[in-house]
């Protein structure tokens, strides 16, 4: 066994032992502990847990790689997945905390005094969470198979057992404290290689500054200028300018921001703190912890891209370093000597280009490309697993509480005892893990695409209903329900038409449909339009129907005031 493998095994085993230990220590004894960790989590712990919950396998493994190949356009993810927290902190978290229930469908159901609204919300929550969680389990399997050389399916099963253990046993309480540990593991694993490479390339130990610094080879050239030059030389677009249209960039960024603020597994984290002011503060801390990774990722993207071009472009294939052949066996990088000169031509023109690179390699192989020590390479696996497991656990909790609390307790069987509900929650968590694992082992081809679209769905359904519920006292149930249904259906329709080509002959037709995009907006950005339509429909229907009952308007008045629920019921 190589050094890298030994380190990987040791670090992964240590981190898993830590998670299991925390799970045993923080078992949940009541539904309140199971759903919202008893409501007594400190803002700092909640901030870290939210950050780990939020940063998935996609953030850890794929994002820097995506940016690496998209250049400026990668900003949609950077701004989209952080800017949503401003909306969350200012427009949602404090009021939902004051409302003080367990789930997002709870809020929708009570604010709109309707079981139909609650069921629609449960349905939206389940669609969003299931698509998202399948991607995480797949991520777990991939990390296992690439680093530990176990079969992908075995990897998924190991991941399932671990998540099952602490989610089913500990509920939100167990999940929260494991997520705190997972945040520490993942941020350490992401930052250490980034700092090493930053020092190597620019002599600056802070990656955020390093990628705007001059190269350490003494030439005095700025790294970004060099990368712009290399890119145009090979026929790619200039790294610092984009190729997507401005309106599409705008729409995608907005859809991701609003979607972030509407994702139930993120919102529910703010039910776990004690006071309204803690909800605000922990949103700020969460974004701070997220920003550490999100401002480093674009730097990693630049380092990795420059390193890759310099290492491979125009070089002899036979003289490639060891990592090249190792990653070739995984299929993440491939060379086809089209002109038979034994060298690697890496250019934009597809007929001449000889190198195909999977974007995930930019993070997974980055430490090897930069020739870092074995223990740093071993960290990546532990970090990727922490990112995937923490997000999966958060999503599973949303699924289980939607079923046990919103469907069983509130709609189907209101007489259920506290103990019965806790068991229902545990069983639905277990069933959800198994379904997620099934999708991880047999991934429908569209998982990756749908994960991105989960944001569009959240933007099109939840966000307007929650915002209107807080900021528009006279919003009634008819308006909110029609808005959610129309928004969700429109988003699903656009996805099916332009992402999967269902109405035009399947996946092959998708590329040809780009010219027909409404307003030139891609399916990824369409959540913005669907959200606007949701708002318009909701307000229009609301105008022609009755005002909500007095006591509901009183609820709205009440959630706007942060202090104790007791004094607000006065008149």
């Amino acid at each position, binding site marked *: 066994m190589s050094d890298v493998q030994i380190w990987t095994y040791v670090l992964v085993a240590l981190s898993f032992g830590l998670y299991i230990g925390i799970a045993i220590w923080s078992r949940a004894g009541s539904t309140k502990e199971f759903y919202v960790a008893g409501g007594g989590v400190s803002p700092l712990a909640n901030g870290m847990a939210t950050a780990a919950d939020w940063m998935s396998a996609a953030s850890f493994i794929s994002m820097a790689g995506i940016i690496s190949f998209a250049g400026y356009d990668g900003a949609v993810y950077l*701004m989209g997945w952080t*800017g949503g927290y*401003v909306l969350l902190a200012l427009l949602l978290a404090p009021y939902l905390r004051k409302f003080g229930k367990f789930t997002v469908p709870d809020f929708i159901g009570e604010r709109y005094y309707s079981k139909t609204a609650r069921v629609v919300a449960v349905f939206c929550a389940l669609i969003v969470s299931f698509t998202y969680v399948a991607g995480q389990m797949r991520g777990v399997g991939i990390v296992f198979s690439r680093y530990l050389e176990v079969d992908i399916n075995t990897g998924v099963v190991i991941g399932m057992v671990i998540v099952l253990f602490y989610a089913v046993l500990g509920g939100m309480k167990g999940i929260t404290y494991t997520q705190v540990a997972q945040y520490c593991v993942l941020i350490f694993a992401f930052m250490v290689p980034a700092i090493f490479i930053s020092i190597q390339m620019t002599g600056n130990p802070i990656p955020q500054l390093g990628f705007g610094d001059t190269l350490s080879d003494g030439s005095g050239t700025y790294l970004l200028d060099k990368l712009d030059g290399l890119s145009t030389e090979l026929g790619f677009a200039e790294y*610092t300018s984009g190729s997507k249209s401005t309106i599409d960039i705008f729409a995608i960024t907005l859809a991701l921001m609003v979607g972030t603020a509407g994702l139930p597994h993120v919102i529910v984290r703010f039910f776990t703190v004690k006071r309204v002011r803690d909800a605000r*503060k922990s949103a700020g801390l969460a974004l701070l912890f997220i920003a550490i990774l999100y401002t480093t990722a674009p730097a990693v993207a630049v380092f990795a891209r420059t390193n890759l071009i310099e290492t491979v472009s125009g070089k002899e294939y036979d003289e490639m370093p060891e990592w090249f052949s190792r990653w070739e066996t995984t299929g993440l990088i491939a060379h086809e000597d089209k002109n038979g000169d034994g060298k690697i031509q890496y250019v934009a023109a597809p007929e001449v280009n000889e190198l195909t690179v999977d974007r995930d390699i930019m993070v997974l192989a980055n430490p090897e490309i930069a020739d870092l020590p074995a223990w740093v390479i071993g960290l990546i696996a532990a970090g990727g697993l922490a990112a995937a497991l923490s997000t999966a656990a958060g999503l599973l909790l949303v699924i289980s509480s939607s079923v046990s609390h919103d469907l069983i307790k509130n709609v189907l069987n209101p007489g259920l005892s506290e103990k019965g509900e806790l068991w229902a929650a545990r069983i639905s968590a277990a069933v959800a893990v198994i379904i997620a694992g099934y999708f991880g082992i047999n991934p429908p081809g569209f998982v990756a695409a749908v994960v991105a679209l989960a944001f569009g769905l959240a933007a099109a359904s939840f966000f307007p209903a929650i915002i209107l519920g807080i900021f528009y006292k006279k919003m009634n149930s008819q308006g909110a329900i029609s808005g959610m249904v129309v928004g969700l259906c429109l988003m699903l329709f656009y996805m099916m038409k332009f992402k999967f080509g269902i109405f035009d002959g399947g996946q092959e037709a998708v590329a040809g449909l780009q010219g027909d995009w409404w307003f030139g907006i891609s399916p990824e950005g369409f959540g913005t339009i669907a959200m606007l339509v949701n708002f318009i429909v909701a307000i229009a229907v609301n105008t022609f129907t009755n005002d909500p009952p007095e006591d509901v308007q009183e609820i709205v008045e009440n959630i706007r005031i942060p202090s104790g629920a007791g004094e607000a019921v006065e008149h």
Partner: protein
Amino acid sequence: MNTDLRKKYWKENLKYLSILLAIWFLVSYGFGILLVDELNTIRMGGFKLGFWFAQQGSIYVFVILIFVYVRLMNKLDKKYGYNEE
């Protein structure tokens, strides 16, 4: 509870929200997207300014915005006696 007081509190809250969200919009959609080409003509070390706002600056501003909001609201809560210990 005093309805007037509640209304005043809510109004002040909305004022803060509009100012903070205007800044949120300006740094991301303004500097990072709509004005990116104009700002890219200005350089800050190795960074073109528009590119920097899109991939770095806007995120820093987001973090600052939330903490400013936390401070403003804690003060406001105290002013209206809505703070809880």
